[in-house]
């Protein structure tokens, strides 16, 4: 099996003489390959570029696109774009957070769900909208979002 560290090493070997301006592309590639940025990954990237780990961590946490926990089996993307906002996506997000007991960027302890807040996902006609593993759920309310999540849970228990 190819370990996560091997993946990181492979990515870094393609950026042999990279300087600090390659930091973000490298982090993106690592996340693409590993699903998230582990502590190990941040340390390795920092060492490779000759940057302090704190600086790399600072840059990575600045951007919403980077996550620091592995994705859950169901990855939920809640849209907080303008149209969804107008249609009440703040309440939807709140309801999901409460149902799962996680903050945006986190993964539930059982590893089932991870929550991500995204800007516009281009489905404004369906607002407010969320996307679970590529499946879109339209015109949500606090209650319907909760029901949808519970359905995924049930589906998991059955299988």
């Amino acid at each position, binding site marked *: 099996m190819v370990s996560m560290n091997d993946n990181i090493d492979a990515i870094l070997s393609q950026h042999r003489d990279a300087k600090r301006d390659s930091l973000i592309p490298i982090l993106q590639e690592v996340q693409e390959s590993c699903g998230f940025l582990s502590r190990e990954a941040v340390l390795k990237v920092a060492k490779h570029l000759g940057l*302090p*780990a*704190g600086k790399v961590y600072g840059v990575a946490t600045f951007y919403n696109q980077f996550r620091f926990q592995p994705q859950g089996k169901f990855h939920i993307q809640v849209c907080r774009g303008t149209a969804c906002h107008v249609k009440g996506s703040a309440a939807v997000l709140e309801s999901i957070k409460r149902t799962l007991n996680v903050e945006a960027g986190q993964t539930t302890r059982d590893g089932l769900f991870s929550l991500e807040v995204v800007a516009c996902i281009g489905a404004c006609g369906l607002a407010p909208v969320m996307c679970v593993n590529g499946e879109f759920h339209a015109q949500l309310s606090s209650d319907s979002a909760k029901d949808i999540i519970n359905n995924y849970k049930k589906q998991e228990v059955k299988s």
Partner: protein
Amino acid sequence: MTMNLNIEVNGKTIQAKSGETVLTALRRAAIQVPTLCYMEDLLPTGACRMCVVEVEGQRNLIPSCAYPVADGMKIKTHSPRVIRARKTVVELLLANHPDDCLYCVRNRNCELQKLAESLGVRERRYTGEKSEHKIDSSSPSIVRDPAKCILCGRCVRVCEEVQGVSAIDFTKRGSKTVVGPAFNEGLNVSSCINCGQCVMVCPTGALREQSYLKEVINALKDPNKYVVVQHAPAVSVTLAEEFGLKPGTDVCGTMTAALRSLGFKRVFDTSFTADLTIMEEASELVHRIKNGGKLPMFTSCSPGWVKFVEEFYPDMLEHVSSCKSPQQMMGAIIKSYFAQKEGIEPGKIFSVSIMPCTAKKFECQRPEMLDNGIPDVDAVLTTRELARILRMRGIELGALAPEGADTPFGERSTAGKLFGATGGVMEAALRTAHFMITGQEMDSMKIQALRGLGGTKISHVKVGPLELGVAVVSGLLNARKLLDDIRAGRKDIHFIEVMTCPGGCIAGGGQPLGTNLDAVRSRMQALYKIDREEPVRTSHTNKWIERLYKEFLGEPLGHKSHELLHTHYAKREAVI
């Protein structure tokens, strides 16, 4: 460059140099413009907007720290518009700031509080969500309280641009921004070297020293403890400032009296063990030169520097002297020689040291500094903490008659005292190394090239038949550059003194807050004056050092010395 420009400020003409910033010109003309993120000698960031001024012809207010002067510029520094802007900035900073000034260690010594006061903030116009950050007290030296942080970035910059450590940085974004170590972990597992320069530049109580006052107060009232104290060379020339006296006033005698009235049984002078350090370190240098040991040799008195090498340059550890620092040497001989002499059980002695330094708090807890589980030094207080306990006990320095330190560790040479300033250890060591190699004293004790506040001082000194290349660096970014040169093969330097803090201990992380470079200069001059005026100027002519070797230690680098006064350092894992 000459003053070639005229600018008009508040209706008066002042002179300026082309290329400088508006703020620099204003400060020279003694026009007070408040700043928060500005740091002398570093590039401006223009982040805080406290220094804004009105410039005729400009639509917006401009940040004076980051704006170049131009001939004929017309500036208003305190117009109603400017004041309103500054006041709004402070009000916004206060919106999510904790309201616990009365309980804050920086009460009455806080830049944010002072600005709010001077700008007349009397009501809460904005209320923000308070941050719920936990206090990080994982480090033995520094406490981090992000709730009080106003994100000025001075700590981040000093850590990166002065010390070359970068243990902390901005993390997250917007209103969620926090200054902290990587992975939001404790400072104790970060690369932090505990130097406390971040504390020195923090405008609020977000960064402060880990205080051990409670432990010291408890020991002082415990009848089963024999509480002794030592004070570092740089403390006596600085403490005065905490009590409103002129910078550079030496209060060694009255401070000794004050320490006695606090209840310390014996008051020892760390400058004595600075002399002892010199005996050991100069011997080590001579030994390395004669026997082809690893050169250049680095000094090891500054615990921030030692941790820095362990983390960032573990391959160079063999170059670091094996001598413990003067604080630890004092601790070690108090609990051995002194305890034996006085018939006190070492475990009953509570050994306190007063240091200009936060890293010393870390140093005394290092496992290498324990002897059979008993620490050489039990608690370290900074100059600031000493001032705090003196105020608490109503002890007025000015009201006391000067007293001398206690034997057998109270008499020092002026060489030992020089440890307080950058270059001092080097001067002291060269005086004794010269005697050890040639059997004669140096013609001139003072080595001008090694004096002053320069960050890197390099010189070549004739010691009998040898010409020694010596370097003195302070501020670890300077040390980093020199280490890289040596790694790359530089060979003309044999002995290097490194002080973690720029300027040495007189500008250490435990010194009074809110002082400036002029004060540091005065402290340095005070040390030089002591060296000029007193008769015993070399460590090897200190009679009490001779006696200590005769009665107890034997000889420098001997068996006893090895056991008590030397140690070894190893590669350290940290998040770097």
